[in-house]
C-alpha cells in the first residue's frame, strides 16, 4: 500500500512538476534510503534531498513564487500541507490510514476551494500527485468484483 514502496515515484512526480512549471528538462534525480527519497543532483555540493524541498526549489527556479503563497500565513499553510503530504499521505501504511486521510481532507476542504483557501498552490499539486494512485485504486476496487459467474 505504502506509496513509498513504489520505486522512483518521487522522481517521476518531480519530472511532471517540471513540465507543469514549464521548466526545461535536464535535472537529474536520484533516490536515497529505504523510503526512496528523491535527490536533485547539482553540479556543486551534495544536492537537494526531499520531495517537497526539491519541489519548492523548482517553483522558485521557474519564478512562480506565488505557488508557495504570498503572505506569511499562506506560506505557513502551504508548508503545513506539503509536510502532511510527505508524512501522512506517503507515510500511511494501511488502507485504514488512507481512509482516514481521505476523510480528514474531505472535512477540511468542505468550505475551501484549495488547500490554502482561495489560492492554488504547490500543496494542491503535490497532494493531487500523492492521492492520484489511491483514487485510481479505489475505482478499480469497485470494478473488481465481476459478473462472469
Amino acid at each position: 500500500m505504502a506509496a513509498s514502496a513504489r520505486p522512483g515515484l518521487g522522481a517521476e512526480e518531480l519530472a511532471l512538476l517540471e513540465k507543469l512549471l514549464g521548466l526545461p528538462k535536464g535535472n537529474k534525480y536520484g533516490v536515497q534510503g529505504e523510503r526512496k527519497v528523491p535527490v536533485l543532483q547539482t553540479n556543486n555540493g551534495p544536492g537537494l534531498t526531499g520531495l517537497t524541498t526539491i519541489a519548492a526549489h523548482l517553483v522558485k527556479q521557474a519564478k512562480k513564487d506565488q505557488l508557495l503563497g504570498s503572505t506569511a500565513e499562506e506560506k505557513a499553510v502551504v508548508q503545513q500541507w506539503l509536510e502532511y503530504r510527505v508524512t501522512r499521505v506517503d507515510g500511511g501504511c494501511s488502507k485504514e490510514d488512507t481512509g482516514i486521510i481521505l476523510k480528514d481532507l474531505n472535512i477540511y476542504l468542505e468550505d475551501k476551494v484549495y488547500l490554502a483557501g482561495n489560492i492554488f498552490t504547490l500543496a494542491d499539486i503535490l497532494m493531487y500527485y500523492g492521492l492520484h494512485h489511491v483514487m485510481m485504486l479505489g475505482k478499480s476496487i469497485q470494478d473488481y468484483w465481476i459478473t462472469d459467474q
Partner: protein
Amino acid sequence: MRLRVAAGGPAALKVLAAAGAAAAPVRLVWGGPSERSLAPLSPPWVPALELDSGTVLFSANAICQFFFLARGEEPTDLTNQWLEWEATELQPAASAALYAQLVHGKKGLEAVEALGKSLAHIEQNLSRRGTAYLAGDSKSVADVVVWGTLFPVLQDETSLPSELQALRTWFQSMTLSEACRKAADSVLVPKALLEFKSYLQKQPPPCLAMERATSNEPEEEEGSERALTEEEITAAADAWARGAAALPKPWQPQKPVLPVEGMRNVLITSALPYVNNVPHLGNIIGCVLSADTFARYCRLRNWNTLYVCGTDEYGTATETKAVEEGLTPQEICNKYNTIHADIYRWFDISFDYFGRTTTPYQTTIAQDIFQRLLARGFLLQDTVEQLQCEDCQRFLADRFVEGTCPFCSYEEARGDQCDKCGKLINAVELKNPQCKLCRGVPVVKPTQHLFLDLPKLEERLEPWLEQSWATGDWTANARYITRSWIRDGLKPRCITRDLKWGTPVPLDGFRDKVFYVWFDAPIGYLSITANYTDQWERWWKNPQQVELYNFMAKDNVPFHSVIFPCSLLGAEDNYTLVNHLIATEYLNYEDGKFSKSRGVGVFGDMAKDTGIPADIWRFYLLYLRPEGQDSAFSWSDLMLKNNSELLNNLGNFINRAGMFVCKFFGGTVPDMVLTPDDKRLLARVTLELRQYHQLLEKVRIRDALRCILSISRHGNQYIQVNEPWKRIKGDEKDRQRAGTVTGVAVNMASLLAVLLQPYMPSVSSAIQGQLCIPPDCFVLSHDFTCTLPPGHHVGTVSPLFQKLENNQIEALRKRFGGRQAKQSPPASEPPPAPATLGPPGDPQLIQELTEEVAKQGNYVRQLKANKAEKAQVDMEVAKLLQLKKQLALAEGKSPEIPVPKGKRKK
C-alpha cells in the same frame, strides 16, 4: 494569535522555543494531553496555532516556520530540507526513542539507539559545512525545529556519544540559548511529563519506517512491485513443470509421536488455560490457536511435531468453585476440562494430546524436580507473613486478595500482579487489602514456606538465556520482559502455599502444604506428555534432538523464561528448555477489554452460537493476531474482512478457477501452453510462497496470512486480464488460451488449499474435496508446482464462504455488548436466550420456522375472516412479520419484509 500547547507533549517544546526565538506575540493556552484538540486533523497533544484570521495551523513545523516568516525570515532550500528531514526521518525515530524511554524505561545509550542514524546525519552535515548552525552561521527555524525534537530524548549533551563533537557543541549552544531554555523549563515540568507518559502508555508503540519494511506489513504490493529477474522466471517455470512428483512425501509419524533421529523434532506447547475460566477470544488467539496454526504448518513441512496442552487445575479458585457448586474439586475439574476440550475441538485445534495437571504423573514429576532442587541446595526456608481471612478461616491465595498497588496505586491490583503496571506483587504489600470472597479485611499471620533460590540460579540462567536468544526466535516482548525482570534483580520465590488442592510437598514440616501453582503448572507440560506416552523423557530430557516452542500471552513470559527454566536448570537432569518463546500482546474487544463479569466480549463457548463457522473465527483472529502490538476485535471489521478478503478475494478466485474447469472443460483440467506472462505469474506466486515460509519460520503468523491473500489477488487479476469466459467462445487459439489460464488458475487454487490448511483447516479440506487434490500433495515445499495436471478430474465446485449481513452483525454486537448485572460466570448459566439467529442454513431451524410462519399466517387469515378486533389482528400480524424475519435470517437472506399493500394506501 492563540497558541495551544500541551505541557509534556514533545512538540510543544519547539513551538515555544520558536515563538521565543522569533519574539512572536502569542497568547499561550495550556491543555492536557487528553483534552480535545483545537485542530480537527491532529491529536490533542500536538500544538495548534490559531491565527487572527481564524486559520488554524496544526503542524508544529509550520507553526515554527510561521513565527520566523512573520519576522521576515524567508525559508531557504536548506531550511526546507532540514524541516522535511525532521518531519519524515527524525520525528519517527525520536518518538520511538521517547517511547522506549518513557514506556519501556530504557536509559542511556540504549534509549537513544533508535536515533543513531539521525544523529550521525546531523553530525555529518555540521562538520562538512563547518558552520555553527544547521543552515548557516546564524540560528534559523531549522535549528529550533531539530533541537526541539531532540531535547526531550537527550535532555543534555552528555547522552550524546562523544565522537559526535560538532553535534554536541551545537546542541549545547542551542540548549543554553534563552528561548530554548525558557521553553524547556515551561514544557518539561515533571508532573506534565508523568501525565504525558501515562498518555503514551495507552498508545500503540510507534512503528519506525525502517522497521515497517521488515516487520509490520509484508505488503502484498511489495512482492508484486519487485521486478522479477529472468533467472527467477525460468526457475519458477522449471519447478512448475516438474509436477507433483517433485514434492516430498508427506511424513506420517507413528503414534505416539516420538523424536526421530535425523529429523527436525518440534515440540510445541501453548500456555495451560486455567480450568475455571472459560477462555475468551483473546486467550484463544494468544495460546492455543497460534500454537495450532504453527503446529499445522510444521506438520506440512514434514517436521516431526508434537503439540500438547491441557488444563491447569490446581489452586484455590478450584476449591472455592467446588464449594459453590457442591462438588469435589476433582469433579469440578472433570466438568470444566470437558468444557475446554469441547471449545478447542470446535475451533479445530489439532492437539496431539490435550491433558490436565491433576494426574499421578504430575505428582511424581513435580516431586522429583523438587527433590533434586532440594538436594542441590537451591531451596530456602523462610517464615512468611501471609494474609489470612478470619471470616473465611483460610490463608488467602494471592488471587483472592485485592487492594491498592504499592507501585502505581492502581486500586484493583491482584495479590500476585498488578494489571495496570504489570509488576509482580507480594500480597502482604498491597495497600488496603480485601478478601475477595467476603470483602473482609484479612490479617497478616506468619507461616513457614519454601523458596526457589533464584539469585543462586542466576549464574546458570544468564548463559542459557544468551544461548537461547542467539539461536532461537524469541518475540521482542518476550526478550524485553525477561531482560527487565532480570535487571530488576532476582529474588527468592516462594513455591509453596497453604492450600489443599494441589501437588503435596514431600517434606516433613510441609506435608500440609502444596506447591504454588507457578512452580507446579509448567511441569504440567511434562506430565501431560507423560500421560500421552510413557516415553515422554525422549521429548523432555532431550535438548540435543528437540526444539521447544512455548506459545503464550505476554503476561506469562517471566514464568516461562525465568522461573521454570531456573527450576529445570537447578534440577540438573538434562531437561529440554525453551528454544523459541512466542508471546502475543493483548487482544481487546471492540473499544475495551473482555470482561466475563460484565459479559463483554465473545467467550469460547459462545462463538459457536453465533452461527459463524469456526474457520471464519480462526481466520479473523489470526488476521488480527496481536503480533508486536495490541489489536482489537471488532464486529464490523470481522464482517468487512469476511466479505472482502474471504468472499470477494479468496473465495471468489478459488470458486471461479474450479467453475471454469467444470463449465468449460467438463470437469477435466485442460492442456496448458505457458506464455511468458504465465511464467511471470508463476514466479510471482513463488515469491509470495517463499515469503510465506520465511514469515512462518519466524512464527509471524499474521503476516504470513497476507501472503495467501496476495496470491489469490494475483489470481483474480490474472483471470480478469485474460477473460477465459470470453476466449472459450473464440477460435482455436483463444480456446487454447482459455484452457491454459483455467489450468494455471486451478493449480493456484490447489496451492492455496495447502497454504490455508494451518489457518482454515475445514475450508482447506473443502477445497481439497472439490478439486479432488491428491492427499500426497498436502505437503509444503518452496516451489509452486503443477499438482493438478491436464486430465485431472475435479469434483463438484461450490462457494466456500457466505456473506455476513449488517443486521446479523449488529445483532451479535448487541448480544455480546455486555449486561450490567453481576451474575455467576456464563459457563454455569443456561445457554444464551434462544438465538434469533441460528447458524444460517441450519435446515432444522428453517423447517421449524417455515411451519410456524404457515401456522401463524393461517391464524391471521382466520382472524381477519372472522372480523376480529383490529388491535388483536395487528398484534398477530406483528408476530407473523417477526417470524418471517427470523426465517429469512435463518435462510441467510436479508430480511426485507414487504410492507402490506393495504397499509401503504392509507
